[in-house]
């Protein structure tokens, strides 16, 4: 029989207002097994913890029940406290009398009765608790960063700086992400390429960083400190180790009709291509959808001109398996498809573009060489209408609209307006907005400059319809402040389309067992206190994959994620989770059913020798759980037809005891 102490917390008035804490302590004193019970204002405070520790010593307690907030808040705190004076931390259980009692029930009598019942269930569980010790597993001192945008690059550079090896897996042929596609960046209007390409070079030249470009993660096994990741290196048809990036092949390739994704399809590229001049790695890639040699078996020009003999038409996808201690998701975002928004005529007119397309049209390395020419007739637009919040802040999702604010559009639209005015002061610019949101250092000043110095017409209102007519775009809109209908004859319409998570993010989250919110942004372990960790141990979040952000915020978060990774990799060993399954070899029949349901492959079978009652020995196959691999889900325990499997910390008898106590 255990000697149990029960400690009831008031949590100020959070618990004490709806639960009679003294009555709970008094009730505890009458529960068999309980030798000491008391209540206190703040159990989690230093003096509260000391009170528990002193009682453990004074009364020789072997088990502790703390009636307090959710175990998700302070189970660790209290377990650490009792452990500091030599009690096994798993001899302590929490009765959640705040989140699941005092905060949900208004009536004090009802709340007190329920709190007593929860306390009794916890006591019943402690009565059956056994000390558990966590095994230790070594930490693989290498990190994986998935996604090579500014977020992934910054995280990788910071981890490498601390002396650890990092690999970047990037699905595109080059790293750089969206930032490489931008022209100038708010709020300083410095050239995006000028700040991002040196970073790309730093990443490419760092001996601690290895880039797997044109690659994807296809499988993740293992757990914090010991992940085993399968990386698919897509067939590039060019040997990365031989290609010098001279670009001769791209000049000679006769197939010039492939849409150029770097310019968002605003112009074409050759079938063998280097995405842009500063690509890292600067290696050519053959697009299998367009290559004549791969599709028709004729051509082979690139192979003939390549002095480095880097072309290999027989290349195939290859999979490699690499071990990592930590994984960072940095998969960024994509621009939402706005073609369902018929009113803006995006699908009908090439002169209706998204903001990112506009970014390319202004960029010196873009399809028009930096001269602002509208796509349909290559004439310079004189009147431009910008529409904000296209697809953002929309409750109706039938057209793919997002309930959230994309956060960056107000600022980049002001940027676009000013840059356009800088180059072509005679352009008339209208911006239709719902609200202008510019919280950020120097952000509101930036927007006001657009209005006050540049004379951009900001109109609060909605665009109802865009009609392409005789080379013009007739924009019908309402001005909500003046309460009037407007018609503007525009040459171009620019849509600030919502941003959405990378389309591969959900699949990746499944592989990583990381959680996502309803919009597919990765969820953080705690929205305030653990913003760069995912709820899955060892998986961290960097950049926009966690939610809309601008570059400064992305870089800050990327650094924070790196510091968490460094903290993890600096440990040589990690304490495992002792709440793992184990099988009773006397009962196990070796039927293999448990291994079939284990999602982690933690169960193997071994032949063991057993002494029989007649003193002979017999060899039998029995299940064995690898405690370092078992994650403690308990699937096997229920599957086992012999009742041989049980789970530490959540054993059959413990759960039954809780059931009994709660039904009493």
């Amino acid at each position: 029989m255990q000697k149990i102490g029960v400690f009831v917390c008031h949590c100020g008035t959070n618990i004490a207002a709806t639960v009679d804490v003294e009555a709970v302590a008094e009730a505890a004193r009458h529960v068999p097994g309980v030798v000491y019970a008391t209540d206190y204002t703040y159990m989690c405070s230093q003096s509260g913890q000391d009170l528990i520790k002193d009682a453990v010593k004074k009364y020789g307690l072997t088990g502790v029940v703390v009636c307090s907030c959710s175990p998700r808040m302070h189970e660790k705190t209290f377990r650490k406290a009792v452990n500091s004076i030599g009690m096994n931390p798993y001899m302590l259980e929490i009765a959640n009398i705040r989140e699941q009692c005092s905060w949900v029930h208004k009536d004090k009598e009802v709340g007190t009765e329920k709190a007593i019942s929860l306390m009794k269930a916890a006591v019943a569980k402690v009565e059956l608790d056994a000390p558990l010790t966590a095994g230790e597993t070594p930490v693989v001192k290498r990190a994986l960063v998935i996604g090579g945008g500014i977020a992934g690059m910054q995280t990788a550079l910071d981890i490498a700086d601390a002396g650890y090896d990092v690999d970047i897996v990037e699905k595109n042929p080059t790293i750089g992400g969206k930032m490489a596609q931008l022209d100038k960046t708010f709020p300083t209007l410095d050239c995006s390429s000028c700040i991002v390409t040196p970073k790309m070079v730093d990443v490419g030249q760092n001996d601690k960083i290895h880039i797997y470009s044109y690659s994807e993660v296809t499988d993740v096994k293992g757990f914090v400190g010991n992940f085993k990741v399968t990386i698919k290196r897509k067939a590039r048809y060019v040997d990365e180790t031989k290609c010098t990036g001279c670009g001769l092949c791209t000049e000679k390739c006769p197939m010039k009709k492939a849409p150029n994704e770097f310019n968002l399809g605003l112009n074409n590229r050759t079938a063998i291509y280097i995405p842009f001049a500063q690509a890292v790695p600067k290696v050519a890639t053959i697009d299998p959808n367009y290559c004549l040699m791969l599709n028709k078996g004729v051509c082979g020009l690139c192979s003939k001109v390549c002095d480095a003999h880097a072309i290999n038409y027989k290349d195939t996808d290859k999979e490699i398996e690499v071990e990592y201690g930590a994984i960072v998701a940095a998969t960024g975002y994509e621009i939402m498809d706005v073609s369902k928004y018929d009113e803006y005529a995006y699908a009908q007119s090439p002169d209706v573009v998204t903001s990112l397309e506009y970014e390319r049209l202004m960029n010196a390395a873009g399809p028009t060489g930096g001269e602002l020419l509208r796509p349909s007739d290559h004439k310079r637009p004189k009147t431009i209408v910008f529409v904000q919040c296209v697809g953002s802040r929309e409750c109706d999702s039938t057209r793919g609209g997002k309930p959230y604010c994309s956060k960056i559009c107000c600022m980049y639209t002001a940027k676009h307006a000013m840059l356009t005015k800088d180059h072509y002061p005679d352009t008339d610019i209208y911006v239709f907005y719902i609200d202008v949101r510019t919280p950020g250092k120097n952000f509101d000043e930036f927007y006001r400059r657009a209005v006050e110095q540049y004379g951009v017409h900001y109109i609060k209102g909605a665009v109802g319809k865009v009609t392409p007519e005789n080379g013009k775009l007739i924009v019908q809109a309402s001005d909500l402040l003046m309460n009037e209908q407007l018609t503007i004859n525009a040459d171009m319409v620019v849509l600030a389309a919502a941003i959405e998570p990378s389309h591969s993010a959900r699949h990746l989250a499944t592989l990583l067992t990381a959680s996502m919110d309803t919009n597919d942004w990765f969820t953080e372990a705690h929205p305030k206190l653990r913003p760069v960790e995912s709820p899955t141990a060892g998986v961290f979040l960097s950049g926009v994959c966690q939610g809309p952000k601008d570059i400064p915020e992305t870089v800050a978060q990327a650094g924070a994620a790196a510091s968490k990774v460094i903290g993890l990799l600096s440990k040589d060993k990690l304490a495992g989770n002792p709440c793992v399954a184990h099988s009773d070899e006397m009962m196990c029949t070796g039927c293999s059913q448990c291994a079939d349901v284990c999602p982690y492959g933690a169960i193997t079978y071994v032949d063991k020798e057993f002494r029989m009652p007649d003193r002979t020995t017999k060899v039998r196959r029995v299940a064995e759980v690898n405690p370092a691999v078992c994650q403690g889900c308990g699937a096997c325990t229920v599957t086992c037809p012999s009742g041989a499997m049980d789970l530490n910390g959540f054993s059959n008898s413990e759960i039954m005891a809780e059931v009994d106590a709660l039904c009493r």
Partner: protein
Amino acid sequence: MQMTSDNENWEPKIIAFCCNWCSYSGADLAGTNRLSYPANVKIIRVPCSCRINPMFILRAFQRGADGVILCGCHPGDCHYMTGNYHTRRRMTLLFSMLDFLGIEKERTRVEWVSAAEGQRFVDVMNDFVGQITELGPSRRLEDLRCRTN
């Protein structure tokens, strides 16, 4: 004392098994947001809904529970990847067995509640408690020797 649903003082006893990662957090969130649901719902924390052995449910009925509800992560979101698929299959089987034993199948239920769905947790619980109250006390499996009042 004979307890029937006519008895004014009768309150159903309800056991809610919640997985640690989604539903238990969803229940916590309900509390954090100060939403309310009846106090006779009592939660037992399990790592995953797949840890819930049909034996636990039978045991609850034997000990006098009037309803047992299992909550886990939404299909596809299980922290352990496939746990809730096992739960779904096992419980379908168990429910038909309960039916065979004469326990109304409305007394047991599987619901998916995510960590972000505090309101859903409350709605589910209110609905379930209402349903069990309507069904009245469950006597079929109850072991009268276990009765304490």
